[in-house]
Each structure stands twice: as C-alpha cells, then as structure tokens.
C-alpha cells in the first residue's frame, strides 16, 4: 500500500475522533477562555476583570484554601493507607485476592451511594453510629458539624483507598526481587530493606499517586454536594462547588468561566510536572 493511501485511510478512520475532540474538547476550551473575558451578560468585555475579581473574592479564596486543605489531608492519609494495604497484600497471605477485591468496592460505588450512606451513618439523631455509641454508653458524635472538612476527607479516603492500593501494588510488583535477595545476603533485615529498597524504588509510583490524587481532589464536587451541601455555612464549599454555585445559582457564566480557566491552569501545571518527573524517572 502506498504511503499516501495509508495516510488517507488513517485520517479517514480518525475522522469521528477529530470531530469529537474538536467539538467537545478544544472548541469548549477555547470558548471558555473567551467567555472568561466577558461580564455575566456575555456581551460586555471586561478583559481580565473576572480574574482579578477572583483573586479578591473572599468566597473564592476561602473555597480555594479549604480545597488545598482537603487535597492535602486526602493525599497524606490516603497515600499512607493505600501504601500500607499494598505492602501487606503484596505478601503471600492466604485470602489476599478476596481482600484486594473487597477493598476496591467503594471505588466503583456511585458517589451518591457513598455520600448518602455516610450522611445517614453519621447523622446525629438517626445515624447508626450514634445509636451504637449510645447503646454502649458513649457520647454521640456530631462530626459533620464539628469537623465537616475532616469528615469529608475521611469519606474520600474510605472510597479511594482501594484504588491507591492497586496502584501501589503495581509499583511493588515492578521492583525486581533480585534487589531484595541481594540485600538479604548482605544481611539487611526486613525494615532496612523496606526503607532502603521499597520506599526509594516506589518513588515514581508515589509521585504518580500524589499527582493524580491532587488533580482529582482539586475537582471534587459531588461528595460535599451530597453529604453537606457545602455546609455548615461554607465549611465544605470546595472550589468546584463554588464554581457550580457561581454558574448555576448566580447565573454568572463569565465569572464561572474565569474560575474554570484558573482550575485548568492549576491542573495543567500539575499534569506537566507529572510528565516531566515521569520522564526523568524513566530515563
């Protein structure tokens, strides 16, 4: 087959994809960059006004700061739990396949179920947790009022730990067993081997887990929307929730577009950092 015919065939096969990505990715992104420069009426040009407004908007700043706290908390706790589980389940323990599958269930469960279930469990009046606590004579909790953000972090870790575990398991299986055998012959004990071999050689996986974790937590919307509605007050109104409110409650699409462009910038920087570090790790 001639090169020319192959090129034609290739582009013919790609036509649906070209149309799809042009119309439903690149066109909207371009549109978003432009809309961000206009007022809520979509007609008056305000230049970078929406962006400078965002930096001076206390609601947006608040949402950004609690999103960072949420992302950091989820990352630290989630990584620790996921790594711990992966290390345990990387051993030849009977029943490990069952444990691996079970721990993954929440990850593939609808966020509606996860959110509603935990809202019910933690409800101070009708929740099963307080009923059990009171039955054994302990005071009830009101975590969704007293520690709302930490509670959302906890639920996020609950639903994501299995996935983090799977990523770490893949990383662990990529470490040649030769290294462990050599270290053992040299007299290194299990703890020493963990800190001198496992942790350093898992660094690329840990980085990958951290960055995809950050990217997804920065966009978290559904969980607080369902569990707390962003409350109490605006204690769990994460950045994406604020964006949603600006767009669909305030109907200010210009401002919301500017906010989404800022989100895109942060995610782009993180993704590119991931690519660069990934390249260096592979080199």
């Amino acid at each position, binding site marked *: 087959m001639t090169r020319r015919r192959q090129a034609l065939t290739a582009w013919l096969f790609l036509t649906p994809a070209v149309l799809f990505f042009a119309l439903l990715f690149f066109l909207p992104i371009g549109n978003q960059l432009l809309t961000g420069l206009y007022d809520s009426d979509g007609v008056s040009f305000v230049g970078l006004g929406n962006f400078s407004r965002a930096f001076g908007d206390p609601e947006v700043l608040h949402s950004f700061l609690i999103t960072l706290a949420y992302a950091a908390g989820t990352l630290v706790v989630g990584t620790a739990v996921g790594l711990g*589980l992966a290390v345990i389940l990387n051993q030849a323990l009977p029943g490990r396949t069952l444990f691996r599958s079970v721990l993954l269930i929440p990850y593939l469960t609808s966020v509606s179920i996860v959110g509603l279930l935990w809202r019910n469990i933690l409800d101070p009046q009708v929740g099963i947790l307080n009923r059990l606590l009171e039955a054994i004579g302990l005071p009830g909790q009101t975590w969704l009022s007293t520690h709302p953000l930490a509670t959302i972090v906890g639920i996020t870790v609950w639903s994501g730990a299995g996935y983090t575990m799977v990523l770490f398991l893949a990383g662990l299986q990529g470490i040649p067993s030769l290294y462990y055998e050599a270290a053992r012959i040299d007299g290194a004990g299990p703890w020493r081997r963990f800190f001198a071999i496992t942790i350093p050689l898992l660094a690329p996986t840990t980085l990958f887990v951290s960055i995809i974790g950050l990217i997804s937590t920065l966009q978290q919307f559904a969980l607080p929307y369902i569990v707390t509605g962003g409350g109490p007050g605006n204690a769990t109104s994460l950045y994406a929730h604020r964006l949603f409110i600006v767009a669909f409650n305030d109907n200010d699409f210009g401002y919301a577009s500017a906010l*989404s462009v800022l989100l895109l910038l942060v995610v782009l920087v993180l993704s590119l950092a991931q690519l660069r570090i990934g390249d260096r790790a592979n080199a």
Partner: protein
Amino acid sequence: MRERLFPGDRIAAYVVLVALGLVTVLPLLYMIVLALQSDAEVQSGDPVLWPADLQWGNFTRLFEAAPFERFFLNSFVMAGAITVSHLIFDPLVGYVFAKMDFPGKRIAFVAVLSTLMVPFFVRMLPIYSIFASLGWIDSYQGLIVPFLMDAYGIFLMRQFIKPLPDELIEAARVDGAGEFRIYLRVILPQCKPALAVLGLFTFVFQWNEFLWPLIATSRTEMRTLPIGLTLFNQEYFTQWNLTAAGALILFVPTALFFVITQKFLVEGIALSGLK
C-alpha cells in the same frame, strides 16, 4: 523459611486487613439492613442491626414515590450508549495510533492525550450553553454525546494493539483485504480481553456519573439514578429506608461487576491505570 518482622506479624497483618475490610464492607451491608427497616425503626433511637420484619414493601413504596424505573432506564440508556460508543471508537482510534504511519500522527496523538489533563469543569459550561441552544437539555443525546470516547480508552487500546504482530496485518493485506476489513476481522478479535475491561469500566463509571447528568437534566423523568436518588433523599429526608432501597438498586451494576471480574479485576485496573 519466612522471615518475621516481629513476633506475631502475620496475625497483626490479618488484624489490620480484617479491620479495614470490615470498615469497607459494614457500611455497605448496613445499606441492606436500612433498606428493609420499617419507618418506626428508621426513626427510633435503637441500634437496629436487623429489622424485626423485613419490609420488602419498601421497594414498592419507593417506586410509587418517585419514577425509579424511569431513572433506571435513563441510566441504562446513558451508560449503555456511551459504552457501545467507546467499544466502537476507542479501539479504532487506538489501532490507527498503534499500527499506522501518516503525516500528523505525533501531533494528533499528543492532542488526544492532552485531553486527559482537561477537568470536566472546563468543558461543562460551554457544552451546557451549546446544548441548551440546541434544545438538548433533558435529552438522551445531551447525556451521551459529551462522553462518546475518551483518551483513557484510546490509550488503553493502543497499548494493547501495539505488541500484536505486524505480520497478521501484512498477511491479510497480501490476501487483498481492505483496510477496514483488516481492522474488523484481524485486529478486533485479538482485542477481546482489553475490550472486556474497557466495556465494564466504561459502563460502571458512566452509570455512576454525577456532575453532568445533574446539570444536563431538569425534568424528573429525565434524571438518571444517582441524581434521582440524591434529589429523592432531599425530598423524603426522613425516610432513609426508602433512600437505602434506591441505593441498592443503584448498586446493582457495581455488584454484578465484582461477580464478573473477580479474577482479573485488580490486574485490570493496574493495567489500564484507569482514573
């Protein structure tokens, strides 16, 4: 012989696993207990670990209170259509990137992969505005079209097709098969395991999708299950038993997924690196 970290390390490992396993499973099992409780049990302060009488009638009441059969249908149409679309387009595009040479290939591939970095929020508002002007809000095409294919699936299929021997394609070409026929008859049949992973994951993720169906629908009869259930709970907020019954219906595909994939699930996720 097995080395020990400390005396009883194996027991400690099982204690941790069982504890975390219970923390994972008990809330989901409690969903079943809750769904079968009477209204009185839901309201009472007693720790109900098993309902006195299993209230199967809660499911009937649920369907009378809100059109859950319609929510189910909507979710099924949305997730099903998107899955079929992915199974058609992701391997085709993946094949082109894996096995064909053409000018512009590199830039096209980078363009596709770059979409992985785009948060849905960045596409959401313009797509909403365009669909609103097309009259696609509260329509199936409105729910389906933004997700017809994606870079994850394309990349997964490319990685799977790349190691397949080129000789297969050459031989078919010598036999005079057309290009599309080669793809359909030679490549696709080799892809069955990857297609199974792609199809199952796409279906479950789309079945669970929350943000877009929340925005793209406003009429009750066009809500998908996750949205319908969440809004139902806001309206019937005291009747947690009915909400839990609805949650069980929403959980069915996830449960089936685990039954089907038991064997290759963990390896499948590691292989695809799916979000």
